């Protein structure tokens, strides 16, 4: 039975990965990352259940806190980026590129 949960977690993680890599909408990217983190949470919970150990649960709890802080920072960044550039297209922000650097 636990392997189903683990497989589910793996599936969620991979969906999140696909979403984070292939989408350009910053919101969707954000949520994909959330999804990946939650997949980890699921794994932790499964292991805690299988081992009868609260450590995993606690870690998952802490991870939820991390997710929350990540959400705060990410969302505020989206707000800022949107305010300055009027877009939430990830491909619009190309400051890392070698050509466009002033």
């Amino acid at each position, binding site marked *: 039975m636990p392997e189903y949960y*683990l*497989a589910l977690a793996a599936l969620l993680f991979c*969906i999140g990965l696909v979403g984070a*890599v*292939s989408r*350009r*909408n910053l919101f969707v990217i954000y949520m994909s990352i959330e999804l990946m983190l939650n997949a980890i949470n699921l794994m932790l919970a499964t292991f805690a259940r299988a081992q*009868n150990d609260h450590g995993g649960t606690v870690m998952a709890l802490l991870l939820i806190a991390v997710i929350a*802080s990540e959400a705060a920072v990410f969302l*505020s960044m989206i707000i800022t980026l949107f305010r300055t550039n009027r877009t939430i297209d990830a491909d619009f922000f190309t400051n890392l590129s070698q050509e466009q650097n002033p």
Partner: protein
Amino acid sequence: MIEQGIFWILTLFLVGGSLGMITSRHSVFASANFMLAMIALSGIFALLNQSFLFLAQILVAVGAVITLALLVIVSVNIHQRYTPDEPNMRRWLAGVSLLVLPFFVLLINTAGKMPISFKDVPAEFGTVRGVGATLFSDWVLPFELVSILLLVAMLAAIIISRRGGDHDA
């Protein structure tokens, strides 16, 4: 048996919601789908006897985070013209999925080989009391650190969103 049935139903929602999230073009639809998935996930936690986690997930992930996200979506007033039209979205999704496939297979393989199984657990398991006991005995320092992290994240959120305002000034 019922457990298994619930598991499959929740899985259906969870996977469906996730897929819907990454495939929907509009931010609001995406977050609605995501909310669905998160609720399903908290159900899965409940299935795993993690009642505290279930609560936390509902409260934080669904209640706080997604609401926050929706709030942001609404507050920045994302109109269709501001969201990218992503003409090659399907192609990208398909291609990236193909790339992810080996990794997924690897994960499934590993998961299948895990030498673990569910046994009966004490009634304490996963309850607020049980988890709290562990949290405040063995995990105090991480817990405090996470609180600092939250504080820092809050400050960061405030500063970033404030600074952005006069960026183009």
